[in-house]
């Protein structure tokens, strides 16, 4: 692969260059071929014989975390050398080592060194595509953006796709084909596999089974069909631990056929969620839904009302005007009640479904509100709610005439919409029956995440030939005869469907780092056409779809736009079979309920080794690097447990010990555990983090069930949370951090928002005139109404600004590095609190307290109002951070940035300095983007200083809810100027007269008067 360092900047920026052995990646790659050895921990350092490797093995990722706190390491020694040198002569720090510069041999046409290119592609999770534009510096993907042309993205992204770029460069990814624990090669595998396949021909492949994750790729589906034609006896199974079986079955129950449900929240005046977390990145269509939902939360234009009926608290629940915490097992009864309520023209049915007084009152109001908004309301069932709830939701939506308006049904997006759990059970049955001779697993890890009761491991050992194709040499790979290292989606060709059916073409941004193979390649070999490349396969498929002379045009346009035009599914007319479903009563409220949820960070465990996601604070608890069991305050009191105490959660005869997190708003007599942690072979970030709860999860009750036992056991456990204190109360006062009002108050009292200090109230008017005279004065507003707390901005910022990961231990010390954080506050009754999200980047104060106190002037004010931070001038007194009332400054207490791993060097944004040890860092409004924009516009000589169109900060660009607006406040008609005039606009702590350039739009709730009473 090419690694020209030609764009003027090496990938590593040093504040003080010390001696470091740089490692040449080509040579390392060359070595990969020969080297043998079963190590799982193979990394380029090791192969290149860099002495760092051993040490890195014993070090928790990242370096900062463990290394520094125990014995002096060689790295440490090097650092001291650097330091002492520097101290000896003043010059040691400024004399640069000679640097090499490596041009191309033949320069590609479209490349302008130093200018990034953007390519459209798509990331796929559970079969649903997230359409992307990927920034590429000389064929190194560095940053993920949403594809603003694509109907399913509109420019927004989600945390998983944002972080996927780190996943691609992960040095722990499988780098070889492995056979029986030894490094083998793709070629050897091709030779080998012919035999077994031949052996299957007699039985028409009756012994062949393929298990893959859910996919929506048309080309792949086509290829699979071809393969199955070749081996009619073979079977293709699909299983993902987090699947949509419930939705599928629900649809079948309601309509007798599997259909995809799409919501049009932009048309919804009333939204009712039945335990649905549609503002979570794992929910198909999240990006689009978040945008539409947020758009309808604007109090100045027809604000919608949102009722959340949910079990485990979610970010969706936080945004609700009315939230009702109920146990998941009780949602069925509630759904039925709403159905009855909506089916009546007026009044409210008196069927006893075991609802409490309060619940009944709530449902009465909800039903009335729904009826009042027939055709402009929507009821959304939760992914993990049983089919019946989905069916009920369908019935309600149909009854309200929402179908076609706020709800649309289409063909399923997944290529083969089977009940994945059933499919998987069949497979296990066949394996037990000894029918399976050749098992191929692609992109799945059943030995970690299969339902425990199926006893997959045993069945698995019985299969004579097991082939694993995946990104990591994970728990399953370990027990397979062959492992084929998979190509990341950024390295391979393919296509995939978004939630609305639109097909995105997936094109590689870089040649496979470790020569990985896509599923296309693998299938090609299995189908006996090894020469067919992924590119050819995908192109060939679309040739069939779009035969004609203009195919090249079509192909180019599709690649350029990132999607194939008019492939979105058209709405489908489906008739509800019936509205009366057999209703099972809610279980005994005394029995303790246990909920299983995909983890907000690592999902089902597949992202375990992604350090960005690991260190990403979970939306509600702000915990990093771990999972835990959520318990409601009331129940915690009964159990006599505190946060961080250990408890034993037992279900049947399976038990798991977990640390407790007391989650405000969690329903009583119910606990929630999160999947995906406790990996044994994930990589340096994921291995050993958290606790594996799959042992509690059975095929019968994958999402929730009652009858769990929870008991306090001795011991506590460190949960590293990034937020010190989750309420706005301090002492006996509530601080005006998040300002709120109800829609009525907002309409009636325009001055609800606390008054701001008058502009003339300052001792230093000096710069006002100068700021106004500039072409640009940068400013930002953050709409607290829109923010759905998805954390996307954090990852985007981390990726854009080369922000280091510090590891659990350092996070626990209060040393995490995120430049923007999303604070979550809970107010009122802890069992049913009001909750708020507040993203906090640097406020870029005009009277910045931090600047005043820096002894070396390392942080100063730019003429355009930026609070500049000059890393290479910083001596690290940390005074600025002390004096920052917002505490948005971050300090490199150790050498947190990884300076040595070559993959990370390739991943970094060359336009941003990589910070060294002992310097302060902070949000700069993405000054690198500002500078680039300014230079461009100055060269073009434009006089239009409204930057709304072409200049976005990383957080703003990635925000699916458009909560962040950034721009030029010197231009009256810029978006940000307008918003700053809005009545809701206020500066955080503006009574300190810091004059922040970043301001907030107060949060407005739209409660139902009936329930307010």
């Amino acid at each position, binding site marked *: 692969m090419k690694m020209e360092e030609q764009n003027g900047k090496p990938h590593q920026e040093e504040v003080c260059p010390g001696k470091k052995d740089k490692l040449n990646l080509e040579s390392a790659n060359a070595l990969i071929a020969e080297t043998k050895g079963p190590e799982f921990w193979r990394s380029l350092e090791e192969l290149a014989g860099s002495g760092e490797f051993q040490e890195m093995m014993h070090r928790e990722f990242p370096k900062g975390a463990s290394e520094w706190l125990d014995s002096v390491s060689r790295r440490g020694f090097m650092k001291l050398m650097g330091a002492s040198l520097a101290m000896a002569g003043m010059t040691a720090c400024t004399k640069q080592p000679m640097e090499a510069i490596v041009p191309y041999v033949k320069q590609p046409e479209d490349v302008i060194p130093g200018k990034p290119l953007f390519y459209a592609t798509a990331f796929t999770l559970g079969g649903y595509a997230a359409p992307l534009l990927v920034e590429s510096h000389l064929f190194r993907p560095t940053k993920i953006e949403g594809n603003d042309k694509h109907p399913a993205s509109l420019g927004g992204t989600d945390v998983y796709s944002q972080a996927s770029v780190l996943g691609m460069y992960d040095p722990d990814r499988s780098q070889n084909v492995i056979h029986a624990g030894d490094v083998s090669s793709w070629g050897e595998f091709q030779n080998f596999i012919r035999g077994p396949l031949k052996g299957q021909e007699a039985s028409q492949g009756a012994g062949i089974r393929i298990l893959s994750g859910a996919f929506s790729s048309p080309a792949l589906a086509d290829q699979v069909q071809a393969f199955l034609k070749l081996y009619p006896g073979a079977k293709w199974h699909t299983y993902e631990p987090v699947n949509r079986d419930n939705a599928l079955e629900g649809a079948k129950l309601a309509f007798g056929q599997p259909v995809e449900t799409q919501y049009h929240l932009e048309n919804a005046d009333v939204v009712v969620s039945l335990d649905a977390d549609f503002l979570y990145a794992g929910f198909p269509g999240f990006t689009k839904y978040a945008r539409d939902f947020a758009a309808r939360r604007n109090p100045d234009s027809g604000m919608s009302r949102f009722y959340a009926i949910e079990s485990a608290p979610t970010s969706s629940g936080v945004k609700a005007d009315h939230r009702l915490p109920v146990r998941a097992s009780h949602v069925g009864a509630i759904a039925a009640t709403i159905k009855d309520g909506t089916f009546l023209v007026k009044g409210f049915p008196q069927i006893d479904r075991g609802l409490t007084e309060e619940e009944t009152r709530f449902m009465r109001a909800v039903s009335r509100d729904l009826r009042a908004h027939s055709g402009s309301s929507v009821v959304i069932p939760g992914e993990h709610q049983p089919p019946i709830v989905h069916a009920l939701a369908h019935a309600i939506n149909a009854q309200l005439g929402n179908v076609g308006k706020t709800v649309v049904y289409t063909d399923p997006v997944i290529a083969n919409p089977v009940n994945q759990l059933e499919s998987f059970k069949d497979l296990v049955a066949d394996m037990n029956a000894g029918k399976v001779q050749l098992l191929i697993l692609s992109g799945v890890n059943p030995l970690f995440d299969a339902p425990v009761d199926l006893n997959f491991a045993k069945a698995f050992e019985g299969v004579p030939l097991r082939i694993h194709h995946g990104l990591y040499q994970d728990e399953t790979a370990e027990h397979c005869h062959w492992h084929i290292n998979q190509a990341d989606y950024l390295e391979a060709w393919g296509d995939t469907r978004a939630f609305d059916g639109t097909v995105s073409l997936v094109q590689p941004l870089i040649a496979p780092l470790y020569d990985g193979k896509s599923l296309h390649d693998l299938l090609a070999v299995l189908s006996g056409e090894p020469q067919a490349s992924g590119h050819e396969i995908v192109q060939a498929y679309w040739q069939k779809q779009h035969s004609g002379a203009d195919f090249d045009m079509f192909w180019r346009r599709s690649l350029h736009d990132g999607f194939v035009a008019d492939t979105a599914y058209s709405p489908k007319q489906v008739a509800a079979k019936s509205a009366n479903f057999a209703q099972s009563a809610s279980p005994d409220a005394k029995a303790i309920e246990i909920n299983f949820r995909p983890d907000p960070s690592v999902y089902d465990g597949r992202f375990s080794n992604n350090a960005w996601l690991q260190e990403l604070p979970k939306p509600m608890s702000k915990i990093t690097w771990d999972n835990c069991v959520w318990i409601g305050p009331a129940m915690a009191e009964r159990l006599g447990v505190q946060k961080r105490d250990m408890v034993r959660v037992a279900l049947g005869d399976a038990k798991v010990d977990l640390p407790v997190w007391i989650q405000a708003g969690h329903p009583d007599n119910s606990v929630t555990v999160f999947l995906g942690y406790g990996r044994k072979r994930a990589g340096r970030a994921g291995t050993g983090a958290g606790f594996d709860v799959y042992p509690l999860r059975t095929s019968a009750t994958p999402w929730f069930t009652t009858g769990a036992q929870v008991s306090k056991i001795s011991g506590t456990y460190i949960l590293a949370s990034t937020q010190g204190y989750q309420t706005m109360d301090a002492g006996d006062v509530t601080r005006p951090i998040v300002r709120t009002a109800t829609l009525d108050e907002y309409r009636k009292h325009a001055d609800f928002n606390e008054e701001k200090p008058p502009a003339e109230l300052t001792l230093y008017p000096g710069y006002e005139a100068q700021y106004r005279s500039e072409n640009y004065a940068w400013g930002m507003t953050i709409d607290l109404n829109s923010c759905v707390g998805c954390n996307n901005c954090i990852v985007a910022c981390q990726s854009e600004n080369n922000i280091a990961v510090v590891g659990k231990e350092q996070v626990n010390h209060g040393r995490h590095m995120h430049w923007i954080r999303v604070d979550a506050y809970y107010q009122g009754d802890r069992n049913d609190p009001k909750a708020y999200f507040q993203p906090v980047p640097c406020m870029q104060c*005009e*009277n910045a307290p931090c600047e*005043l106190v820096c002894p070396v002037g390392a942080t100063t*004010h730019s003429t355009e109002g930026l609070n500049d931070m000059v890393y290479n001038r910083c001596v690290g007194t940390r005074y600025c951070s002390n004096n920052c009332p917002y505490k948005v400054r971050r300090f490199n207490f150790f050498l947190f940035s990884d300076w040595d791993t070559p993959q990370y060097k390739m991943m970094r944004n060359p336009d941003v300095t990589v910070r060294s040890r002992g310097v302060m860092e902070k949000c700069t409004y993405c000054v690198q983007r500002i500078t680039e924009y300014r230079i461009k516009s100055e060269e073009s000589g434009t006089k239009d200083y409204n930057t709304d169109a072409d200049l976005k900060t990383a957080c703003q660009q990635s925000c699916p809810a458009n909560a962040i607006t950034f721009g030029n406040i010197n231009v009256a008609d810029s978006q940000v100027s307008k918003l700053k005039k809005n009545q809701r606009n206020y500066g955080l702590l503006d009574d300190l007269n810091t004059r922040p350039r970043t301001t907030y739009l107060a949060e407005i709730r739209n409660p139902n008067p009936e329930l307010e009473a």
Partner: protein
Amino acid sequence: MKDPKIYGLLAEFDTAEAVVEAAQRTYAAGYRKIDAYSPFPIEELWEAIGFHKNGVAPVCLLGGLLGGTGAYLLQWWINTISYPVNIGGRPFHSWPAFIIVTFEMTILFGGLSAVFGMLVMNGLPQPYHPLFNVDRFAGVTRDRFFIAIFASDAKYDLLETREFLQTLHPHSISEVPT
């Protein structure tokens, strides 16, 4: 008569009163190139030998002024001429903030010039001095008092001066070899 090998005459006294009185009389007798020595500072003594102005204070003042103005000018130049930067929205010439360094530098230069001024004017360091040739003189650092009349004095004459010193009833008289 003058003996080139003699640096001066040294008279030793037992008490402070004695030496002060003797000093006054020596001065009255018209001797000017004289000096007195005591184990501790005695204001009357230097008054007695006619040493009234020691010029340390002006030096100190000068040093202080230089230090202060220098410091302020430096800060002013740095912040308004050399590299004016907007720091926390404060004026370039934030004079209140500059006062402290100005003050400290006034003290520093004032103090140092006082001390070094004193040393220089005292002609120190001067580890070698003819007086040390007189062994009895060691007592001056303990409990003895002395008056010296130097050969360089106009009125000085080995015999006459010795006689004159006798009249002061010293504890002893010794010649100071050059």
